[in-house]
C-alpha cells in the first residue's frame, strides 16, 4: 500500500513462508475451535457442533490471511 517507504516488503524464503502459513492455520483452527467450544458449553449445543463450526471458520480465516499476506 502507500505507507511503504523505509522497510520494503521483502520476498520471504521458502521455509519462512511455510512456518508462517502453518502458524496461521494452527492459530486459526485453535482459537476459533476454542471459541466454538466455549459456545458449546455456554448454550449446551449437542454433538460438539460449535467446535466443528468454529474450526471451519478458523480454517477459512487462516486461509484468507495466508492468501492476503503471502499471495502476490
Amino acid at each position, binding site marked *: *500500500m502507500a*505507507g*511503504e*517507504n*523505509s*522497510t*520494503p*516488503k*521483502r520476498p*520471504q*524464503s521458502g*521455509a*519462512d513462508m511455510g*512456518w*508462517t502459513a502453518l*502458524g*496461521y492455520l*494452527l*492459530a*486459526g483452527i*485453535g*482459537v*476459533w475451535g476454542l*471459541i466454538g467450544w466455549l459456545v458449546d458449553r455456554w448454550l449446551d449445543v449437542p454433538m460438539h457442533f460449535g467446535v466443528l463450526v468454529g474450526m471451519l*471458520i*478458523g480454517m*477459512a*480465516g*487462516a486461509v*484468507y*490471511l495466508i492468501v*492476503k*499476506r503471502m499471495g502476490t
Partner: protein
Amino acid sequence: MNLQLAPLAADVPWPPSVGEFFPPGIGGSVWVTKFSVMVWIAVAVIIVFFLVTQRNPKIVPTKAQWLGESVYGFVRNGITKEVIGHEGIRFAPYLTTLFVFISFVNLFAIIPGFQISPSSHIAFPAVLALLSFFLYWYQGAKKHGFGNYIKTSILLPAPWWVQPILLPIELAQILLIRPVTLAVRLFANLFAGHLILLVFTLGGFVLLGTGNIGLAAVGLISWGMAVVMTLFEAGVALLQAYVFVLLSASYIQSSLADEH
C-alpha cells in the same frame, strides 16, 4: 515379554523414560544440574572463542580470525541482511550470539560425556524464545508506538465483516503461537533426538544381553543405527539453531515493517 537379561544388560536403565531429562542436582543443590553446568561451559567457550578470534584483528585475517568472522558473516549476511534488510544489521550481534549459543548447546546432545542437550529441557528454549519475543515487541513498539504497532500488525486491509474472524487469529499468532512454536520446535527436536539415541543404544545392550544369536544380531544393527542417528543429530542440531535464528529475524522484520 519376559527377557532373560544377561549381566551385560542388567544395569541398563530400560526402557528409557522422561526421567532422563530431569537430572538430579549436583552437590545437593536443586538449582545446579548437569544442564546448568553445560550452559556455563557453552557460555565460557563462546566468550573465549570470540575474544581469541577477534582480539587482534588484522587486515589479512589469521586462521582463527577468519573462523570467527565467517561465523559472524554468515549470520550477518546470510540471515540478517537477507531477512531484515540493511536496517537489520544492528540485530546481527544478537542473532549471531543466539545462533552460536543454540548450536553449541544443541551439539551437547552428541558430544561424548555429555550426550544430552539442555535444549531438550523445555525451560531453556522457552527462555530463548521469550528473549526474541520481547525483542520483536519492543522493536515494534519503539518504531510505531505501542498502540500503532498493535494496529499495524493486527489489522488487515480486508472487508469489515471479515475483521472479527481474523482479529483473534492474528492476536493469537503474535501473542502465543510465535513464541510457543519457537520454543517447542527446538525443544521437541532435541527431546526426540535424545530419545531416539537412547532407544537405539540401550536397545542394543538389551538385545545383546538376551543371549539369543538372532536378537544379538539385531542388537548390532541397532548400534549401527545409533551411529547413523548420531550423525543425523549433528545435522538437526545445526539446522534447528538456524531455523530458530531465521524465524527470530523474520519476526523482527515483521515488527519493523510498515505494513503487511
